[in-house]
Structure formats: C-alpha cells, structure tokens
C-alpha cells in the first residue's frame, strides 16, 4: 500500500458543517469570557489560521467581510467612548468641549475629557465584541450556513428551508434596491431624501415579493412539501415540541453563559429541553419523505474538531478559576495583560483541526481532474 492512499476516510472531504460551527462558536463563547487583549488576539489568530487552512470556496471573501465588520465595531465602540463615555479619572489625552444636558439625562454626557484609561478599556471591550463577530465569520467561512441548514434533521426541514429562503431574500433586496435607484436616476429623480427612498422602496418590495413567489412556485413544482402518511395533528405536535425543546435549550444556554445566574437553573433546563427536542425530532423525521443527497458524515475528525473547540473554551474558563483576574486586564492602573497557561493550552489544542482534518476538495477542481465514469455504468 502506498503512502498516497491510506483508506477511504483520508480522502479529502469537507468536514461536517456542524463540527466547524460548534468549534467556531466555542471560540466565540471563550471570547465572551475575557477582555484580555492577548487572549483575544490569540483567539483571532487561531480562527484566522483555521480559515486560511480549511476555508470553503467562498470562505475568503466572507471572512474578509467579517474582519472588516469587526474593525467597524471596534471603531464605533471607540467613537462612542470618546463622545459619550463616562468621565473617569486618569491621564487626560484631550479635553473635548462638553455639552451640558438637562437634568432629565442625568448620567449621560457628551464631550468632556478623554483619558488613556477609558480609551484602553473601550478598546478591550470593542476587541471582545469584534472577536466574537469574527468567530462567527470564521464559522461562515469554514462551512456555509446553507450547508449547516442542510444537515438539519427532517422534522426541522421546513424551518431550515424558510431560513435558507430568507437568507437569499436579503441580498436580493439589496441588489434590487441598487438597480431601482439607478433607474430612478434615469428619470431625473434624485434618489436621496425620504421621498427618494419611498420611491425606491415600493418597486423593490414588489420585486422581492414577485421573486419570492417565483421561487415558491419553482420549489413546489419540484416536489417540495410532499407528505408522508402521517396525520396533520401529529405533525403539528412534533413541530411544536421541537420548538419548545429548542427554546428551553436556548434559555438554558443563556443561563449558563450569563455569569450572574446560578448554574442550577441552567443545567436541568438544558438536559430537559435537549431530551424533548431530540425525541420530537426522531418522531417527526418519520413524517418526512425527504432524503439527503451526499449527507455530511459525522466521523472521528468531527469529534476531534468539536473537542478542540471545547478545549479552548474549557481552557479559558479554567484560567478564570485557577488564576483569578487573568481574564480581565486592569486599566486602573494600567497593567500589562497576563498570559494564563490553561487558556494558552486550550488555544493550542484548538489549532489541531486545522492540521488534523483534510482540506475540503476545491470547488472547481473538477475541471482539472479527468472526468469520473458514470456510477451506474459499472453494473
């Protein structure tokens, strides 16, 4: 056996979309636990490295968009700090003219002194938010959300398709808006101002509605919504219990993420919700005729990826437990950020999927490799 071929599982294949999303969201969650700029920077580095190594065909563009979005968020945070920030004691960099506000707006301030401390604090905060966004961007770049929706279980299929359609609707609207604004210019109307926008809005919405109806007709003509032999009542019950279960899981997650509420509330809700949703999904799956073309497989590589993401999150959480204060960086007085070792170890583990998984086959690789024979021809 040659080295080039080591069994079918080593074939280059795209990782299950769910695995990348779990990994990236774990990194994002880790980011929400810390304002330590070194850790945030490392998180960004890990996400960017994985994207560079394993992105899907459109991933580069998507990730670049989220990077820019992150920068914008950081900039907005800084501007807000300068304009509206609370006047904290510290080294004053510049003193802006301050606007006195009526007493109704007590606590709100415009202008005034800008200190190094407040700017540094705002940078850390903005960086945290930007990191979270960029982690979501990494998830998008590593596996398109459409692919994630495709792997939804049968009972959630219709929810998935609704989301898919909504996702394609938004860019379509933008496209139509640009087109109509251009056309309005052709009639000599200026497209600025409220009236200009109203003039654009109506045709754009009509356009969007028309194309949605067309899409619905195309989907219907291609068999979307065929039913298995299951009563309507049972179908509704399963859908309802899936949604209730998922809602419970979502509430539980919120409880767990929010450091303020006790974990006792979160855990039972999480387990219970997951059980209800799981059972309903299993039952509901039978009502669906639908099958999957090239279903994404969940194999060892997916487990490794999810575990790596979890390791990063655990590392950051443990750093907070074992080295209290290492996750937050003092701006009062300004202190150098620390580098807690548990978090470092976790982040190092999070890099693993970028090496251990196979690279997804390139999109238009087919034009470069010889054509495959017909699958059915060998029979």
């Amino acid at each position: 056996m040659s080295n080039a071929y080591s069994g079918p599982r080593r074939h280059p294949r795209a990782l299950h979309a769910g695995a990348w999303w779990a990994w990236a969201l774990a990194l994002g969650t880790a980011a929400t636990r810390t304002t330590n700029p070194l850790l945030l920077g490392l998180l960004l580095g890990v996400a960017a490295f994985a994207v560079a190594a394993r992105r899907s065909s459109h991933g580069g563009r998507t990730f670049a968009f989220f990077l820019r979005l992150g920068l914008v968020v950081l900039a907005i945070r800084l501007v807000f700090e300068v304009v509206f920030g609370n006047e904290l004691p510290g080294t004053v960099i510049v003193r802006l003219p301050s606007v006195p506000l009526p007493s109704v707006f007590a606590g709100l301030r415009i202008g005034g002194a800008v200190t190094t401390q407040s700017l540094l604090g705002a940078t850390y905060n903005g960086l945290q938010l930007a990191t979270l966004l960029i982690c979501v961007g990494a998830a998008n770049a590593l596996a398109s959300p459409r692919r994630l929706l495709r792997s939804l279980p049968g009972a959630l299929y219709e929810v998935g398709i609704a989301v898919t359609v909504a996702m394609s609707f938004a860019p379509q609207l933008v496209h139509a808006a640009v087109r109509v604004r251009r056309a309005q210019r052709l009639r000599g109307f200026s497209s600025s101002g409220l009236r200009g926008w109203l003039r654009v809005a109506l045709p754009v919405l009509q356009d969007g509605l028309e194309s949605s109806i067309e899409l619905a007709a195309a989907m219907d003509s291609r068999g979307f919504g065929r039913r298995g032999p299951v009563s309507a009542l049972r179908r509704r019950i399963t859908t309802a219990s899936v949604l209730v279960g998922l809602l419970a899981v979502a509430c539980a997650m919120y409880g767990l993420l929010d450091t303020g509420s006790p974990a006792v509330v979160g855990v039972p809700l999480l387990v219970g919700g997951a059980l209800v949703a799981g059972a309903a999904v299993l039952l509901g799956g039978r009502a669906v005729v639908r099958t999957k073309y090239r279903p994404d497989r969940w194999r060892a590589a997916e487990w490794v990826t999810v575990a790596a993401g979890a390791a990063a999150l655990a590392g950051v959480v443990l750093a907070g437990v074992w080295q209290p204060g290492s996750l937050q960086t003092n701006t009062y007085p300004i202190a150098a950020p620390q580098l807690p070792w548990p978090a470092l170890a976790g982040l190092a583990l999070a890099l693993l999927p970028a090496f251990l998984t196979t690279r997804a086959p390139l999109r238009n690789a087919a034009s470069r490799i010889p054509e495959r024979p017909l699958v059915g021809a060998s029979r």
Partner: protein
Amino acid sequence: MIRFEQVTVTYAGAPKPTLRNVDLTIPEGELVLVIGRTGAGKSTLLKAINGLVPHFTGGTLAGRVSVDGRDTRTHPPRELADVVGYVGQDPLAGFVTDTVEEELAYAMESLGFETSVMRRRVEEILDSLGLTTLRDRPLLDLSSGQQQRVAIGSVLTAGPRVLVLDEPTSALDPPAAEEVLAALTRLVHDLGITVVMAEHRLERVVQYADRIITVHVDGTVSDDAPAPAMADAVIAPPVVELGRLARWQPLPLSVRDARRAAGPLRERLAAITHPRLTTEPASPVVTTRGLVARYGDVIALRGVDFSIAPGEIVALMGRNGAGKSSLLAQLVGLYAPAAGRVEVAGHEPHRRSASDVIRDIALVPQQPSDLFCADTVDDEIGRRPAAREMLDRLAPGIDGALHPRDLSEGQRLALALALVLTNRPPVLLLDEPTRGLDYPAKARLVKVLREYARSGSAIVVATHDVELAADAASRTVVLADGELVADGPTSEVVTASPAFAPQVAKILHPLPWLTVDQVRTGLEMSAS
C-alpha cells in the same frame, strides 16, 4: 400524455377568460412549440400542465387537465413533480441551493429518492446536459446559458416524462441559446421526453418543433403541424417570411431547407444592386476615449473607443457579460470611469446632476418596470401630453387606471420609452428591448426608432437579437470581454460570424441582404 378537455381559465377580477374551451392532446415524445402574441396566455397554458394554474396562481379552471392519467385538480404541482418538470422564465429565480450538483439533486431529495439512485441520476444528467465540468461550481458564477441548462437538469433528475419550458432562450445570447436548444433536442431524441415550450424567438426554435400550438388573443387555441401553422401565422420568423415572399412550396422552416430552395432567388437578387444606405458623416454627439469601467475586482470595459453621431442607430452586441450594460451605464453617468473619458453632448455625464443628464441622454434599462414608481399608468405619465401621445402611438389602448406592473412586456417597454422620451433627448439608449416582444411589437419598435433617428437623434440598442440589429441598425458594434472587437456597417459585421448572422443573410449568403424587407424592396424596385 397531456390532455386538455374543454379547459377554460379565468383569473380573479379578469373580465374575460385567458384560455377558452381548450381541447388538446399532446402525445408522448413530441417537441411542441407554443406561440402567440405577448400576453395571449401562453404561460397560463404551460402552467396549467403541472397544476401551477390554478393551485398557485389562483383563478378558476373549468374542464380537465390530465398528465399521464393524473388529474391536476386532485394533484397539486408537488404531486406531479415526478411526471412534469417545469422551468420558469428566469432560471436564477427558481434556484434553491448554491451549487450545480446540489441543485440537480434538490427535486430528488424532495421526492425521497434513495441516495444511490440520486448519485447515479445526477451523473447521468450532468453528462447528458454537458455540465460535468461545472458540477461543483456556485450557480451564481455560471453563464446564463449554463444556468438555463442547470435549471433544465434540476427538473429532469426527478425523471419526468414531460418537460415544460417558458421562454428558455429569450434572455440568452445566440451561442448560449444554441447550447440550450442542442441539449433539449438531444433529450427529445435520446430519452423520448415530451417537451412543451413557449418562445418568442421563433427563428431559433421553429425548425425543431413537431407541432405548433397557437394561443389566440381571444383565448382559443389551435394545434397544427409546423408548416401549415406557419403558412398564415401573424408571428413568423424571417425564414418563413422570406419563404412566403418567394412563394416556396413546401414552406421551409430551417435555414438549411430555405437555402436549398433559394437558388433561383439568389440568382435574381445577384442581378439587383443592393440598396445601400449612405450616411454622410456628422460630428459625434457621444464619444468615449480609452474608457475603462471597473467594479471592485471586475474590469467590465478595457479601453473602449466608441462614438455615435446624430441620426445613427447602432446595435451593441456581444455575449452576456461582455460589457454592453456597463457601456450604457457609463454613457448616462451612473458610474465614473476608472480611466479614459466619456463625453455626451460636450459634457462628462457622471459630473452632472441626474436631471441635467436626462435632458441629453435617456436609457431604458433591461427591466423597464424599474423606471415606474406610481400606482397607475396615468399617475406615471402625469401632466405630460407628449408622453401620453407617445404611449398611444407605441401601444394604443392601454387602460390608464392599470398598475404599471400589470402591463405586458411590450406595454411596459412602451410606457418606459414614453417616459424617457418626453424630454426628447438627442441620445437614446435601450438595453435588451426585445425580450418578451413578439414580431409585430418588434416591428412597431423598429419603426419608432427609425423615426426618432430620422428626427436627428442618436440611438444605441444593446441586444442579443440579430434580427433586430439587421432590421434597425445602420452600424453594429461587438463587445467581447470588455473590449470592442468589431465596429462597422451592420451588413459587414453581422455576416462576418455565423453565430451573429441573421437568417436571411445565412440563406442568401454571399449576397449582402439582411432582412426580408430589404429583399422585398429590392424585388419591387427591379420589377418596376
């Protein structure tokens, strides 16, 4: 295979039925062409086959439509998906997924096919439509001909016995249309699939048809073999018009048949000198020098030198994405050039305000309805008697209380023209004006354009329609990949490449005649 029994379709609120007492039987394995005037109910007929009418569109359907023994009354479109494949006018609007392979598999997924069957079918369809090399490509990156083939493939994978297509080639450039039609005829011949197709561009499809169904304006339908149907049809391609003019029997439907019959006509015409239009050179009203247009990473125009003088009609041709629309957008100043210079009536258009620009130059965009912003035709026109007069001339009898979006394609174009021409700008640009227009509507458009040019205006028509270019344009400019590759008298440019040659030129080659009208005048002049 398909049976219509006494079918009458009436849409809600419509004063009269769209289809009236239709009795039809379409046997298996035929390629049937549905023709008719714009807005005559062709789409309604097609949609009735898979139950989109009335299940999706509303309205009432009296009578009975059945496909392969399944009544559409009891079977909504989704229950017919494995028998009838329906491809709408705009393939992009019907795509559900991102990539070619997933799109092909979508219908089978909905119908619950086994994974192994799906894999085999997808491979078969990729092969039979020549899409193998595109399997992983994102749908948005494909050319329009490829998109249309994917749309056809995406309904074929479900294994239907009937394929219904609504204007599959109208939006395509000539080579892309060839591509799609070749794929369709192969399906008919190799797999015995029944194809029902509506199309305005008869010159492209009529030779492939086994039968022609004509939908009349009153909603009735007639069903004939192609040659008899064409013998007295109002809507006929140039090859048929020429055949009628020369009284060829039997009436030829393809260039090949016509060419075999055209020997004597060619001899007669060779003796007549072709009436050449001589235009004295005037100073150009629009010029571009080294024009470069760029959107992000995409360079749409690479150094284009173009000019047009008053009184000229120029056809702007080229593949989809060659830069035609970009050039028009630059001329009306929608974007600033990345390099080079645009001058319209002595000004740089992108530096002027919208209301100043439109006094000198008007553009009718690809979707004329983008120009509309009022709720009724009357409001749209407002208090401009010139616009009203123009509209009445272009499309007489439009009800002023109608919503602009409820107009037919031809009426929308007429309204858009009326709106942009109210200022009587010295330059008029049209982007793909003939999509969805039937031959009589096209002839009216050409007449208006000629008159407008004669009154001293310059007109640029970006089009895939070689027949329109041959008919109306004195000069033809061909763009390819953002560069100007040909610029000269229409008769020379369009005959230079077979893909862009009009039918009459192909039949009479090597003589320089382009249209039936020219031949008719030539013959009349020689007779007198």
